[in-house]
């Protein structure tokens, strides 16, 4: 099933509520007349550029200590001996935790401080001290002796007979995920052409600018965590359960965040460690991971190997799709959005005969977790590279081949898409924004430089789903506060939701404040994942404001002795339908004060008869220097379908960021692990190459702006993850177009490109 299904249920009808206004009762927004749809700057822009925006590591509480974690230097072994007495005796040290004395809390399949270490970077002990330097010194004074165990770093060896067992139940992390429809053998038998290819993708590191971490404070038996997280309610629930606290004793706050990209969807060990250190020391404790720890132990994109077979008729129609994907997920399965490598093989093209299998395998490496379109970035590289190869084999235009296999239905759920033409529109917009391959710019400028163009398409979730809630209150001066228990992970959630509230009530953006990021004040909202936040929360905001608006109409009728059925709400006013009278909202609010109008809204279920998905097509233009192996992405057209565009500036920002991150994945980024020792060699920003501005192409943003009215009450879908999905195959296909060599392993480093060119040179 799709990623969103794993994350939070099937998106079916919302539970009955007698209080909240259900977003399904809202009429569609036919046109936008207020702030929604406009390219507003982020509401927190000034705070961010002036430095006044506070992140989790910006908390400086009185008496605050600094936590630090001792991590395993070996990939697999037993802690035979651990003596922390010298660390405890160090001046400034207030607490030390290790498996001898920490509560035996379970975390996933292991203990919080497990005497068995399973990867380089696994947590062994922790300290809290008055300065970060003292904490670092204390770690060096902890004396640990390990008994090394045999280890395994890659999925194939982990599945082999006699491989070291990473967990008692073996190295297969879960039952293989299998999917089938039709008769694949018959499909291949009917095929005129069969493509049979193997693709590999690498372990990639998130490298959010802000690392994982939190500040923990206990007061009267209640815990407050300022946490850099994509899910404040998720953290609250998990921390409360692990520490055996009731929910109302845990408060999680995320005011601003410097990125998460999926790695902050779940509760990692540091949250519990900070809480325990704070309890033991009776002081607030701040525990932020440094860059090394971030890159060793706080998530990565699982490397995959995909064996792909496509069967097709001469005219390009697919008769069979088969894929077996193996993902190395590291030492622990941490939950969150699942890495759905095979999902796109099931949905993107019309094909009666499909069989997919995905294996998740434990290895003695840092645990993987969701990373911007988990599974899809990997899977689309395989599928769309194979489709490009098929187009070449059949001498068909790559876009024509894709359109020949177009589907308006979600073939997994057997439902029509809420936007059946969504992907077709992306193809059309991409084609019109792309330059002709015969254009002068694509002629050779130097003997060594070859230019090429490549295309890739994708589908994805991002339709949002219940449950989610919003509360609205109209202040005495007619300004509006909206409260939700959601978080803004840096994407602009706060701004988009403010625009929706202002649009619905018909007032200026400046008269609306959205309060988010605090479990103590806001009602439940899900984690920010699956590109679903706007589509999940937006309808709830509209519903809450509409609920408040209905009460305002009632209030106006009572205040002014009118028949309520003769009044309606229009752009910040209550008006008589015959036009003879009107009152501004602030007049109503002022007259009512100190009484207050409030509203509560909930996100209703998605339409049962439709499947809500997002789509995209990208076309990359590359220049390949055959002497040096350098690949330069010169221009990239990104045409995505995210339904209604609430804020073009934010949409463009997600596209620029996603494409840039995709360029890094396509060309440079790869965690390298020393095979002899299991030590990652580039867990830093010098040797792990994220893309720089110089590596980013000119991005042509060509989003559609067609409301998906069948999807939800705001007609908008997500755009957070999609822009990264098709980047790598679009680039790899363009490289093929340029030099006639198909590189099936990511990233396309100088080394891989030169090696592939050399092989091609030898071959022909």
């Amino acid at each position, binding site marked *: 099933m799709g990623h969103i299904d794993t994350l939070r249920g099937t998106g079916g009808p919302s539970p009955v509520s007698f209080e909240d206004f259900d977003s399904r009762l809202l009429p569609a927004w036919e046109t936008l007349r207020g702030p929604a749809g406009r390219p507003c700057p982020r509401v927190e822009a000034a705070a961010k550029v002036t430095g006044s925006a506070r992140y989790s590591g910006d908390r400086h509480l009185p008496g605050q200590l600094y936590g630090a974690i001792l991590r395993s230097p070996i990939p697999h072994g037993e802690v035979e001996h651990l003596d922390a007495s010298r660390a405890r005796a160090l001046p400034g040290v207030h607490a030390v935790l290790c498996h001898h004395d920490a509560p035996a809390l379970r975390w996933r399949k292991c203990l919080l401080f497990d005497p068995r270490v399973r990867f380089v970077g696994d947590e062994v002990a922790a300290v809290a001290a008055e300065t970060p330097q003292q904490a670092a010194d204390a770690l060096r004074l902890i004396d640990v002796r390990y008994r090394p165990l045999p280890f395994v770093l890659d999925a194939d060896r982990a599945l082999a007979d006699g491989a070291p067992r990473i967990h008692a139940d073996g190295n297969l992390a879960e039952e293989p995920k299998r999917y089938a429809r039709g008769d694949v053998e018959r499909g291949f038998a009917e095929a005129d052409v069969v493509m049979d290819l193997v693709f590999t993708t690498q372990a990639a590191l998130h490298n959010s600018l802000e690392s994982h971490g939190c500040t923990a404070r206990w007061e009267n038996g209640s815990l407050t965590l300022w946490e850099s997280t994509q899910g404040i309610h998720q953290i609250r629930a998990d921390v409360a359960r692990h520490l055996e606290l009731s929910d109302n004793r845990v408060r999680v706050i995320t005011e601003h965040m410097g990125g998460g990209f999926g790695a902050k969807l779940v509760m990692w060990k540091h949250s519990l460690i900070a809480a325990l250190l704070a309890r033991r020391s009776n002081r607030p404790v701040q525990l932020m991971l440094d860059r090394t720890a971030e890159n060793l132990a706080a998530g990565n994109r699982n490397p995959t190997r995909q064996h792909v077979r496509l069967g097709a008729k001469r005219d390009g129609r697919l008769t069979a799709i088969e894929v077996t994907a193996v993902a190395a997920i590291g030492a622990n399965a941490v939950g969150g959005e699942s890495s759905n490598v095979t999902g796109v093989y099931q949905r993107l093209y019309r094909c009666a005969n499909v069989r997919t299998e995905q294996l998740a395998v434990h290895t003695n490496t840092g645990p993987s977790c969701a990373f911007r379109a988990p599974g899809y970035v990997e899977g689309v590289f395989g599928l769309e590279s194979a489709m490009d190869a098929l187009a070449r084999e059949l001498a068909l235009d790559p876009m024509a081949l894709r359109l020949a296999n177009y589907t308006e239905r979600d073939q997994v759920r057997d439902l029509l898409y809420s936007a059946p033409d969504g992907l077709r529109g992306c193809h059309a917009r991409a084609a019109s924004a792309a330059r002709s391959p015969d254009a002068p710019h694509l002629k050779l400028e130097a003997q060594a430089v070859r230019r090429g163009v490549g295309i890739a398409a994708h589908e994805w979730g991002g339709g949002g789903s219940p449950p989610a809630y919003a509360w609205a209150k109209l202040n005495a001066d007619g300004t509006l506060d909206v409260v939700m228990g959601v978080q803004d992970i840096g994407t602009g959630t706060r701004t988009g939701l403010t625009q929706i509230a202002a649009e619905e009530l018909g007032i200026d953006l400046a008269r609306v404040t959205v309060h988010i990021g605090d479990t103590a004040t806001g009602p439940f909202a899900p984690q920010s994942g699956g590109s679903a936040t706007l589509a999940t929360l937006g309808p709830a905001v509209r519903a809450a404001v509409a609920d408040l608006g209905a009460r305002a109409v009632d209030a106006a009728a009572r205040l002014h002795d009118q028949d309520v059925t003769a009044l309606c709400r229009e752009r910040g006013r209550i008006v008589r339908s015959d036009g003879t009278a009107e009152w501004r909202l602030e007049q109503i609010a002022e007259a009512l004060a100190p009484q207050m109008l409030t509203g509560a809204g909930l996100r209703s279920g998605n339409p049962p008869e439709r499947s809500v998905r997002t789509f995209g097509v990208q076309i990359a233009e590359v220049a390949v220097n055959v002497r040096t192996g350098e690949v330069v992405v010169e221009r990239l057209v990104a045409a995505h379908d995210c339904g209604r565009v609430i804020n073009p500036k934010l949409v463009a920002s997600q596209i620029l960021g996603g494409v840039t991150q995709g360029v890094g994945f396509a060309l440079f980024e790869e965690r390298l692990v020393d095979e002899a020792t299991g030590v990652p060699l580039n867990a830093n920003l010098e040797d792990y190459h994220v893309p*720089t501005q110089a590596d980013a192409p000119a991005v042509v943003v060509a989003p559609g702006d067609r409301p998906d009215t069948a999807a939800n009450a705001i007609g908008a879908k997500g755009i957070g993850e999609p822009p990264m999905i098709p980047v790598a195959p679009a680039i790899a296909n363009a490289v093929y177009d340029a030099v006639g060599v198909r590189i099936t392993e990511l990233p396309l480093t100088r080394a891989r490109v030169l090696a592939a060119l050399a092989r091609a040179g030898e071959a022909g």
Partner: protein
Amino acid sequence: MRPFEYHRARDTSEAASLLSEVGVQTCLLAGGTDVLPLMKDGVIAPRRLVDIKRSADLDHAVTLDDEGLRIGALTTLAEIAENALVREQAPLLAEAAESAATPQLRDAATVAGNLLQRPRCWYYRNPAFHCWLAGGAVCHARDGHNERHAIFEGDAPSPCCAVHPSDLAPALIALDAGVRLRASDGQARDVSLETLFRPPTSDRRTETVVGDALVLEIRVPRLAPQTYTRFVKVAARRTWSFALAAVAARVTVQYGRITHAALVLGGVANVPWRARQAEQALVGAPPAEDVVDRAARLAVSGARSLGHNAYKVALVQGLVTEALHTLFARAVAK
């Protein structure tokens, strides 16, 4: 934090006496872009840092006299890249300086520090390994991840396969640069820059033979007429990364023949690597296509790739081809 003493030296003489004190591990500090990360990573743990940024007899200035350019030891990479005299007299050096690191790092890093910097090998820099270069017994890169490591060794196999990371060193060597040192006896001594670089040995685990001497200035002689230069570097990405390989190329062409050639490679050996056979093949030849091919082939003679760096052999040939193509085109156009 490991405690250390900090001294600000009034002049090089004070710095030298602090440096030579027996029993106290001492490091010089100028730009700090290499020393401080080495300390933070735990690769070195000096007991004392001697800050020479304000030494009275060191400067960051570029001047031109009859001999050529004089570049003070403290001159930053940014100053070199932007300096009008350098750009006019030694554009090769400006190109190399501009290709290094980031604007922030170039603003802090000094030319002398750049020449004396330690390798970026991920085994050497990682405290989880105690590699040969850091004083241990083995080179982990030889059979490990050696994508960024050496393809050239001297006559004897080197116990280390890290590469010299400097972009400036190949350029300066190609320009026949000299260096003025303050020797341990207090005397100034002029030597060719090239002679400072030597592969490490078991009793000298560094890439230079500077020892306790201090670099005072760099001297770059004037170029002969009809001399053409080019610096080409390829890194893993387009900026802010060290060279996978780089070439500093210089040819002088008179009456249709190459009369002088220098091809110095960066990122391929323990030290900046002179492609001598290629240089010899160029001298006396015309600036022609087949000469480019021959030079590119000869530039990698003697190359021995490790498990993961065979691509560097092709890359060096590509770089030499790219550089010579440009130079020959300019020479022929004259």
